């Protein structure tokens, strides 16, 4: 009897020790490092040199942690109840979801010095109508990276046909690896820019189209597609503009094609998670990021279009990029947001498995 009681006590003791260790960081909070912020971000959005110079200038330490999908960000932020991070960089639709989960804190615009420099077409968009929680940081559009050499002497339609038209395609392509993006691309091709949420019949058509496309897809990937282009694995890849701009600087035969039917835009935004208590440091960091030289560097390293319009002194701004950055609201109206009116996620993911399993 004694023995059993004691053993029970011992087991309880160890269980509590183990769990306490795990909850430790949560109980202790993370402000043990006063002069530092933790930024949860995409692997390739902040140039290390900018961070370094910021740290040198202000003495604030920046801890960078990376995710590779908005979904990853959402899962982790929900799991931690937004604790442990001081700044995150969600895409447009992720901002909407994070707002719905109430994981963001409202911004104090008085501390933001660059508001006037922001491109007005990027403000007050449906995912955050008054920009109360998010500031656009950079953006990119989807389009095609195309091998100019391959299409020399061929017709090159500036259209979604480049990846969907079975009568035209006789080459391998690199396709996005995301059911949501893929179905929206297919909808754009099938039903034009004004398409609505797909009904059952349309879902079938979309699935059919994507299944057919599978035959000439070399790689499904959200990353690395520019690399396929550069190594001449595929003459056409679906990609966001940033990758193509990066690649264009390295290999001469690449060009970016925007489908004339319309295309999709992704805006990366800066947001402060609800649990962060280091607002002051975060605002200082933000203000630093939006300096002209920082955003220029950002564009030249990663190829993301900046959300500010003062690009006069930028070193390597090509005409096409310049035109895109200074888009009129009308031109901007050609862009659609992804994830505006998604089908249920399970349905989409199931569709994607069906497409790839034939």
């Amino acid at each position: 009897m004694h023995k059993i009681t004691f053993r029970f006590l011992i087991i309880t003791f160890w269980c509590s020790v183990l769990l306490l260790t795990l909850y430790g960081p949560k109980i202790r909070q993370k402000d043990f490092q006063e002069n530092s912020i933790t930024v949860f971000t995409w692997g390739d959005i902040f140039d290390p040199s900018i961070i370094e110079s910021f740290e040198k200038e202000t003495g604030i330490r920046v801890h960078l942690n990376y995710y590779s999908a908005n979904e990853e960000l959402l899962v982790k932020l929900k799991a931690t109840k937004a604790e442990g991070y001081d700044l995150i960089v969600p895409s447009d639709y992720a901002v909407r979801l994070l707002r719905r989960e109430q994981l963001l804190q409202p911004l104090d615009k008085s501390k933001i010095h660059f508001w006037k420099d922001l491109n007005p077409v990027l403000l007050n968009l449906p995912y955050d109508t008054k920009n109360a929680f998010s500031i656009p940081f950079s953006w990119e559009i989807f389009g095609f990276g195309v091998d100019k050499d391959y299409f020399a002497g061929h017709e090159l339609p500036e259209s979604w046909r480049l990846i969907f038209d079975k009568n035209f395609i006789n080459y391998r392509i690199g396709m996005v690896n995301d059911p949501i993006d893929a179905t929206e691309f297919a909808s754009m091709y099938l039903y034009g820019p004004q398409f609505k949420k797909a009904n059952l019949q349309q879902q079938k058509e979309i699935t059919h189209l994507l299944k057919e496309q599978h035959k000439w897809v070399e790689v499904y990937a959200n990353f690395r597609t520019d690399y396929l282009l550069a190594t001449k694995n595929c003459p056409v890849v679906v990609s966001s503009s940033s990758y193509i701009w990066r690649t264009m600087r390295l290999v001469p035969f690449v060009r970016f094609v925007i489908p004339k039917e319309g295309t999709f835009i992704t805006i990366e935004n800066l947001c402060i998670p609800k649990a962060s208590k280091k607002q002051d440091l975060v605002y200082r960091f933000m203000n630093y990021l939006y300096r002209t030289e920082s955003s220029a560097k950002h564009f030249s390293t990663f190829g993301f279009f900046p959300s500010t319009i003062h690009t006069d002194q930028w070193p390597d701004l090509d005409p096409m990029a310049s035109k895109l950055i200074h888009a009129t609201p009308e031109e901007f109206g050609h862009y659609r947001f992804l994830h505006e009116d998604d089908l249920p996620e399970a349905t989409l993911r199931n569709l994607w498995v069906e497409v790839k399993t034939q």
Partner: protein
Amino acid sequence: MAKRECGAVREMKKIFLFRDYPFAIGIPAIIFQMLFFYLPLAILVVGSFIAFGEEGRLQGFTLEKLLFFMRAPYFKVIGYSLLLASGNALLCFLIAYPLAYYLAFRGKRIKNILLFLLIVPFWTNFLLHVYAWFFVLERQGFLNIFLQKLGLIHEPIAFLNSLFSVMVMMVYYYLPFMVLPIYSSLEKFDTRLIEASYDLGASWRQTMKKVLLPLSSRSIKTGFFLVYIPSFGEFAIPELMGGDRQMFVGSVVAHYILGDTTGSLGAAFTLISCCALIISATIWFKLIDYLLKRCVK
């Protein structure tokens, strides 16, 4: 009264300090295992049968999540995974056995160097191997250049993003898991048995079949399952080397688990595929036993 209490305290001390302190300090490993291995697994299993409503409220028992996967594509996914894992294990075995044989019986002086060379890649990050194979299998990669220089081919071949490249990487990664167990069983092996077999007039092939294979059968099974089980759940290699054109069990799990709202579906599929894995592993186990027994007859 006071005296009796004293006795009780002493008794407690005696039990605790002299008899049970080994238990107290020895048990953490088991607690750790129960708490962080079996409990999460149990939650995973139970979670596959529970429906959650809005805001994560419990709604009771459901088979819906399991039934969600009762569709042709998922059976195919499991089927492909079984093929991939079996193919990988077989290929590994075919490459590993001669290698282990050489290491154990013929390596002699360079044996240790060869073993060393076998383990070094195994002990480096596997993503780096993926990366290395990019370099080789690339359209402009080493292999294509090499073959073109030899004049064997004129146009570069697309090795990457195919079943071929997936298999290459799978075998590359899992080979040591097969070689090492077989090697260590062959190494312990009494070479006199082989000589005896030759003395009795058996040919090399007969000796192989009737002496070596059956006697190393245990380690063959160990190696087979060390390769088979993890390659069944593999998702990184097909994604990185195969362009993710074909989904396998691991990729489907990751596909659902990392989704925003489909986490528990991923858990349910994990459960289903585990069942498939257990059943197929049992079948393989019996089959290997049977084949090895037939060898002897």
